[in-house]
């Protein structure tokens, strides 16, 4: 028998409800287990504190206590029987409301998830379009930069021409 199982018997041991055989097993274990000895000490100590707290007598019921209960019942009867049917309805309504809440929750969940799926599907063509556009813009940009480089070459050649032309004219005049 394991230590944990035997420890679980301590409450029954303290209330003398173990069989003779179990008591013998537990006592053998107690003789060598400090943890169980300490727990048994705790059970006895706390029982003593509880018993000490009840060393005084509780107030005794007055001779007419039962009558005063009937008076209280009469005062509450009208109130109780007014609210009682409503209380019953409320009690019956609780499981119905719970079922409705679960049904509404699952409906909302399916709706939201289907909307999300639809949104994902509609987002895919957009992505394709944007990719197409970006490649188109890339091509246009390449053409544009090519034109600019060609233009640049033209400008450079024009400037060079402009520089060389006066020199040639000067030579001719000499």
């Amino acid at each position, binding site marked *: 028998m394991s230590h944990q199982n035997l420890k*679980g018997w301590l*409450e*029954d041991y303290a*209330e003398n*409800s173990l069989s003779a055989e179990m008591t013998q097993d537990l006592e053998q274990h107690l003789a060598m287990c400090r943890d169980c000895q300490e*727990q048994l000490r*705790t*059970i*006895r*100590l*706390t*029982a*003593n*504190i*509880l*018993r*000490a*707290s*009840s*060393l*005084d007598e*509780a*107030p*005794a*019921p*007055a001779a007419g*206590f*039962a009558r*005063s*209960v*009937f008076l*209280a*019942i009469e005062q*509450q009867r009208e109130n*109780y029987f007014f609210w*009682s049917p409503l209380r019953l309805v409320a009690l019956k309504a609780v499981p119905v409301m719970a079922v409705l809440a679960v049904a509404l929750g699952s409906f909302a969940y399916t709706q939201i998830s289907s909307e999300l799926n639809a949104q994902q599907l509609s987002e895919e063509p957009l992505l394709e379009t944007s990719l197409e556009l970006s490649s188109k813009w890339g091509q246009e940009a390449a053409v544009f930069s090519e034109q600019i480089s060609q233009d640049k070459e033209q400008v450079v050649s024009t400037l060079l021409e402009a520089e060389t032309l006066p020199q040639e004219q000067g030579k001719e005049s000499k």
Partner: protein
Amino acid sequence: MTIDKELIQRCQQGDQAAFELLVKKHERRVFGLVYQMVRQPSEVEDIAQEVFTKIYFSLPQFRIEASFEAWLYRITINQCYDYLRKRKREAQVTESDLSDEEAAFFERFGSITQPRHLDISKRLELRQTAERLLSVLPPKDRSLLILKEIEDLSIEELTQVFKSSASAIKLRLFRARNHLKAVYEKSCKKEKGKQRV
């Protein structure tokens, strides 16, 4: 059929005299438990009255094969919880401490020293110390220990009152007892610390 069951059946048929007998049969037990839980003598009668009023209105739904005593204890404890919740009195931390004599008494009480051998002032002192230690526990732990040690309910009976399994009750008892022992040991250490100073 037990007397309780016979009385309950008569009550369920509208016999008010049977209910009066039922109240008279159990009033002391309810007063005792309420007093142990709330420790306010002036409040005991009002709470007990509420308990019996609830029982009266709930008797039509009571199943005759169930344990009346467990049901009575459950209603009484719940009524005490309601009262304690309304009062919202915080647990008092034990400022005054245990003397060696008191500690020795708690360690041996029941085996060596019998309470009837104590004089009135000593009984009062011990009771107040025990109450102070218990006041630190949450009401749920206190009610469990009171039913176990003062009302002498077995584990089996506690399972009916708290609607729990025997292993769950044993676990709750284990925790409640260790909590109380920790409070007790803290009080002992304080006293020893003071003596050293």
